[in-house]
């Protein structure tokens, strides 16, 4: 196959660099012109071209809800201790986020100091955080920082402003939520269709007063 015949987009190299590192490309990412890369990939023509181009290297571009990532062709995903451990940790983290007063949703800005403050003021959160296996000091702030850095490394978050230590929640974070959604709890009916008329009964009150 001749590369020139394919008329690959100019950003092919950058796209490959990010995806091959195992990272996600999110539509609301700002670092390294990520949203631009997303647009390039989202163009159906480009997508076709890049898909066939990368397939030579046995990579497949997978499309999620406003994000892209790489999987390997002909290599079934494996089950390893490490993988299980990673996602067990993610369950802990998402459970912690779920218990925050201000829930973290896609597009939100997150500051470790703010979360740590909330954890400090809430016994339940404190206990949750204490149980998450992290390797840094016991200090709450450092633990939250470690969590944010982990999410940043896995490209679910993005360090938007270093000075104020503000992270942005990227679209790829939806991947983690989809993993949770895919898990079936035995003996429970599968999750209902999500409609606005069917609000969940946890403490989500649109009008707290």
């Amino acid at each position, binding site marked *: 196959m001749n590369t020139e015949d394919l008329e690959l987009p100019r950003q092919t190299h950058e796209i490959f660099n990010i995806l091959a590192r195992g990272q996600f490309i999110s539509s609301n990412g700002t670092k390294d012109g990520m949203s631009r890369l997303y647009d390039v990939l989202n163009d159906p023509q480009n997508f076709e071209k890049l898909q066939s181009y990368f397939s030579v290297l046995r990579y497949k571009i997978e499309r999620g809800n406003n994000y892209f990532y790489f999987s390997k062709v002909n290599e079934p995903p494996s089950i390893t201790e490490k*993988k299980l451990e990673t996602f067990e940790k993610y369950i802990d983290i998402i459970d912690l986020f779920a218990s925050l007063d201000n*829930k973290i*949703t896609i597009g*939100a800005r997150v500051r470790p100091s703010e979360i740590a403050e909330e954890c400090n003021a809430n016994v339940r959160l404190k206990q949750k955080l204490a149980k998450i296996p992290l390797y840094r000091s016991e200090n709450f702030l450092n633990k939250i920082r470690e969590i944010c850095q982990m999410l940043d490394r896995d490209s679910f978050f993005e360090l938007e402003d270093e000075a104020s230590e503000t992270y942005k929640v990227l679209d790829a974070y939806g991947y983690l939520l989809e993993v949770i959604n895919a898990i079936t709890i035995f003996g429970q009916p599968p*999750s209902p269709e999500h409609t*606005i008329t069917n609000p969940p009964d*946890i403490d989500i009150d649109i009008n707290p007063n």
Partner: protein
Amino acid sequence: MQISINDILSTLYYSREAIEYLFAKKDNVSISQLKSETQLSEEMYHRLKSLEIVYEYENTVVLNDSVIALFEDILQIGEVTPGVIADYILEVKRYISFYQETHHYRFISPIKKYLRRLDKAITREIIKLQKSIDDTYKNESNYRIKLRRLEEYREKRDTLISSIYTLQDLLSQNRSTLSISGDAQLYQIIQTLRQNLLENLDYLIEIQTDITDYINKIQYQLDIYQKAQQIKELKDQGLLHFSTNFNEVVANLNPIRFNGHKSPRTKIAIDTLYTDIGQQLCQKIAEKYKVSQLRYRTSAGQLSFNINEKLLDHQILIDNQKLVEKFLQQKEKDLFQFILDYKFPKEVGTLTLDQKLSLFVEILVQYEKQLHFSYRINYITVTDEENRTRKIGYTIIPPKKEKIKQSS
């Protein structure tokens, strides 16, 4: 004070940098901040204040609301204010009833004015609505506020739709009254307005889909959070692997990141190794694997006439570090004696006396901190390779007894 439009415009123009700054920052701008950021002169600032373009509250400066509103209207940004539409409709109604009573031409002109305004305002409000919805979904960080604001926008959308219906009704009910006037311009305005109203209605329906979509997305995330809490509970009870299909789900996750795929490694082209970057890479690798005995170095400046001759000069260097280490390990000889008697590897060959001397000096300079200077001078007589007898004085560097920590 007499204020002319000219005054206002020129003041706005000359202080445009400050106005732009204030408009962008909206609030929390102190006077000193404004002056330093925008190089606003004291005189200009007073002028702005006297024309009431800016207000000053306890050391902070804000732009006059009507100036902000003017910019927002032109730029089609800012909060959605569907109330304006209702006001305009009332005005139209009023003037139509006046006209019905008197059939006097002077009431036609305000009707035209307000209908034109309505046309512009409805479109503007819809664009603002769309922008605000997108902005709220993408940038509002508190999810409760986000949901509330989206709900508010839904209400505003409903208000806009009902205003449009009211206006349509008003126009069709008074069709005969308005056509009696025989005003071609009015007819034209009404035609355009009707057309635009229909288009805007379509657009509003699309907006409704957007709002619902956004709210659903947030709701979905909240539902997942609820589920995550349940799963976590099972995990805490040690039931994660038994009461759920967690293992199966995780096993099927295919992103390369979680399957231990490292980024692909390709061999570096030989040509690249000869470039400056390649040279740096080689050095790093040499350091890592401690390949320092023999090091190839690219040399500059040896441009021979025949350019095809190899440009790389394979020069063999003596590893000074190793030499010093060996010197420090023995106890009999001082450094110069050691170098004189040292058997250099075959690749290096035999060193001349001058070369050995320069090596000695080189080591002294390079390892000054590790070596133990005795500050005594020794004189010896040696015979060089040309059988000349030379008397040399050198400083004695005895090997230190304890091993010295290596410096890299």
